[in-house]
């Protein structure tokens, strides 16, 4: 098999995805893209027929789910515990109230509420029954799996790309192998620094994209139910798995520079940051 670099770029999961691989042909990348699209169709909250949308409309009833959905919900519960409640898939009602009620590319029609809103803890509204592989979601509760799905899918789909590849799903990057130059794959971080990674993940979270209105953005603080006010614009983290990276980068953003970086350091996580301009507005990145 040739060691030529194969690459594929496409739009999915509400962002840009990139697959790179050495030693496999384009067919493997095409199959991986189809997997991404299939999982996007399952986990999107914007299409009424998606499995997630049907679960969100379950109104307290137990709903049978696919093995993929069951595994993703287990990942969401893990993320909740690992982040001490900060990464909470149950923020969807708050996200809708803030105005994010349709795919971002379609344009958000109104600025949304600026009133605080209570966000229930995920374990309080989500019950998984492994015996029947079914799930119950409390009436009124609804889940957004966007970020968690990107990380978890990058970890899953790297296996489809062979032993020397990059699976970059909307900035959640899972890496394996020595890369084209033999020292690992070269991955850029949010502060324009770069690392060579042989086996691991690089993930970035921030408030610099998906913004609308005066100061609205997609990172909801579960304590207030509103877009978080943070003194960080972007955080990149280097971790073993992309799911962990997705969770830790979001934690740092939500906690802010002081507590957020302490959170990362206490877990031995290397990071890069871009501070926000001004105090706690999270509005604009500082000049790089």
């Amino acid at each position, binding site marked *: 098999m040739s060691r030529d670099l194969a690459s594929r770029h496409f739009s999915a*999961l*509400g*962002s*840009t995805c*990139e697959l*790179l691989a050495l030693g496999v042909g384009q067919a493997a990348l095409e199959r991986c893209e189809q997997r991404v699209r299939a999982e996007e169709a399952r986990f999107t909250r914007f299409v009424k027929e998606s499995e997630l949308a049907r679960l969100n409309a379950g109104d307290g009833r137990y709903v049978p789910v696919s093995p993929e959905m069951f595994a993703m919900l287990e990942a969401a519960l893990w993320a909740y515990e690992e982040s001490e409640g900060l990464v909470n898939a149950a923020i969807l009602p708050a996200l809708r109230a803030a105005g994010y009620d349709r795919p971002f590319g379609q344009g958000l029609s109104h600025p949304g509420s600026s009133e605080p809103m209570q966000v229930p803890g995920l374990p309080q509204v989500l019950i998984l029954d492994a015996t029947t592989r079914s799930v119950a979601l409390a009436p009124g509760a609804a889940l957004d799996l966007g970020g968690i799905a*990107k990380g978890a899918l990058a970890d899953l789909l790297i296996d489809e790309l062979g032993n020397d590849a*990059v699976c*970059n799903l*909307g*900035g*959640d*990057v899972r890496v394996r192998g020595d*890369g*084209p130059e033999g*020292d*690992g*794959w*070269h*991955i*850029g*971080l*949010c502060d*324009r*620094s*770069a*690392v*060579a*990674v*042989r*086996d*691991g993940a*690089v*993930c*970035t*979270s*921030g*408030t*610099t*994209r*998906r913004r609308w209105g005066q100061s609205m953005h997609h990172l909801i603080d579960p304590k207030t139910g509103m877009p978080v006010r943070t003194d960080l614009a*972007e955080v*990149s983290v*280097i971790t*073993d798995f992309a799911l962990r990276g997705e969770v830790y980068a979001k934690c740092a953003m939500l906690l802010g520079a002081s507590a957020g*970086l302490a959170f*990362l*350091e206490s*877990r*031995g*996580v*290397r*990071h890069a940051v871009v501070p926000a301009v001004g105090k706690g507005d999270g509005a604009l990145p500082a000049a790089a």
Partner: protein
Amino acid sequence: MSSIATLRWASTLGTLLLALLAGGVVATSPKPSQAPLHPSVTLLPNDATVQSKSYVS
């Protein structure tokens, strides 16, 4: 030296010894601001070309 002063001195000395044994003096040194890199990760120079990039999406 009075017995009280002797006791105070002994107490201070004991506290210092305990602090040394427990690494208390070491703990006052600056804490590293970054976790060490995993052996599978290396920092690249500023002008390095990248093959992919992590970003906010």
